[in-house]
């Protein structure tokens, strides 16, 4: 029976093959060697020499057109690689079967005041083992109820690889849980009417109040003389002042553009000017606007155009008496004050003050409105 030999066959392409084969035979035995073409040969070596041969061929600038293994060596190699795959699959299956019985996460539903992390931490501490089969849901429910007084009912279940905890918290009166804040004023105002519902008043009618000042404190002193926290509630009305301002100068300089303009432009590449257009500037007064933009979207040749536009301007002295514009300025100040009013608010009073000094007149319009500032 003919012995089946293991061998690795290389089809190679390159020059000066004879010289290379002479060098190669110093390291390995070439089992067969056949010239297929002027530059193409096929050679076979033993599997033990394959690595050395491949390295030699690559180092000597040969192109390896194909590499084939055959014989028992290849079968063994294939078997070993298959065996590796089978072993890998077996490990994956074992890993999967092991992890399927393990609790991976704890989900908490229905909590409001109580933090889910607190319940989760408690379960993790008290679960003992992470294996599903060893987790006792009934026992955990009892432990949770014993430990968290706020819970009125608890149910623990295992769904998939998660422990699902549904909780109901007992409702405690707000007085036991909430820290109340006092009612404070949002405006500078004068108190006109107070109707206290709950809490302790810190103001009285007719009092002028600053923004941020406390109106009602969040507590009461009961009949026993003890301080008790309550939610402050009151209907408080106040005259709130809103104001707007406008200014007039008897004389001022006004600068404006005449409409004449001159343009200059440069084209640059990498910061070097490759084209420049300069214009003669005859304006005695001007405003300058500069703009730089890419001429194209080419990254390799980023041409840029820099434009300069000179606008001719003139400055003029404007002189106007305050008496001529007084009503106009009052109207302007009032419009600014009206911006602070809320919808459908009734104006109780309007007050106009004018301050004049060194040709500058400041008009202030103050509007008084009645507004509810308490919290019910």
């Amino acid at each position, binding site marked *: 029976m003919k012995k089946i030999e293991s061998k690795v066959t290389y089809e190679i392409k390159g020059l000066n*093959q*004879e*010289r290379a*084969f*002479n060098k190669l*035979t*110093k390291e390995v*035995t*070439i*089992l*067969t*060697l*056949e*010239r297929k073409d002027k530059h193409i*040969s096929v050679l076979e070596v033993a599997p033990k020499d394959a690595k050395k041969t491949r390295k030699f061929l690559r180092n000597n600038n040969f192109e390896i057109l194909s590499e084939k293994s055959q014989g028992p060596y290849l079968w063994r190699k294939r078997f070993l690689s298959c065996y590796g795959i089978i072993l890998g699959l077996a490990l994956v299956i074992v890993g999967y079967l092991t992890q399927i019985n393990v609790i991976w996460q704890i989900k908490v539903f229905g909590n409001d005041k109580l933090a889910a992390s607190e319940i989760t931490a408690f379960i993790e501490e008290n679960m003992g083992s992470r294996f599903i089969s060893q987790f006792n849901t009934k026992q955990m429910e009892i432990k949770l109820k014993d430990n968290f007084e706020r819970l009125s009912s608890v149910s623990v279940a295992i769904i998939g690889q998660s422990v699902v905890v549904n909780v109901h918290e007992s409702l405690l009166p707000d007085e036991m849980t909430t820290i109340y804040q006092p009612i404070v004023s949002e405006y500078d105002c004068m108190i006109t009417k107070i109707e206290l519902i709950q809490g302790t008043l810190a103001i009285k009618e007719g009092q002028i109040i600053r923004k941020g000042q406390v109106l009602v404190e969040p507590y009461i002193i009961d009949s026993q003389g003890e301080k008790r926290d309550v939610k402050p509630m009151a209907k408080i009305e106040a005259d709130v002042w809103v104001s707007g301002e406008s200014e007039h100068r008897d004389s001022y300089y006004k600068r404006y553009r005449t409409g004449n303009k001159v343009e200059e432009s440069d084209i640059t590449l990498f910061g070097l000017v490759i084209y420049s257009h300069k214009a003669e500037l005859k304006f005695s007064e001007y405003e300058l606007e500069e703009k730089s933009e890419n001429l194209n979207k080419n990254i390799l040749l980023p041409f840029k155009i820099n434009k300069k536009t000179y606008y001719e301007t003139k400055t003029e002295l404007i002189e106007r008496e305050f008496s001529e514009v007084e009503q106009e300025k009052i109207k302007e100040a009032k419009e600014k004050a009206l911006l602070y009013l809320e919808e459908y608010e009734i104006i109780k009073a309007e007050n106009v003050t004018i301050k004049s000094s060194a040709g500058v007149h400041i008009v202030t319009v103050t509007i008084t409105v009645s507004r509810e500032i308490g919290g019910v």
Partner: protein
Amino acid sequence: MFNFFEEIKKSVGSIDPNILNTYNIINISGKILYVEGHMGLTMLSKEMIAFKVKRGRVMVEGKELVMYELTENTMKIVGQISKVEVL
């Protein structure tokens, strides 16, 4: 131990043994050419294989020539060998 080449050399006693120690070539039925003591391939094709030997060069001509078991100093040439020339 019996050595085929040494036995042949001994049987022809008139030639200087130093000259006989360069290379050996055996042609088996014009199909296989066994070479011992070559000093490197110089040409390889289907029709011609040439190699260096000490003090010369050998040219093998034929058809469908394939090299078998080429080592640093031995080789087998297999094919239709028509001519072996020592230059």
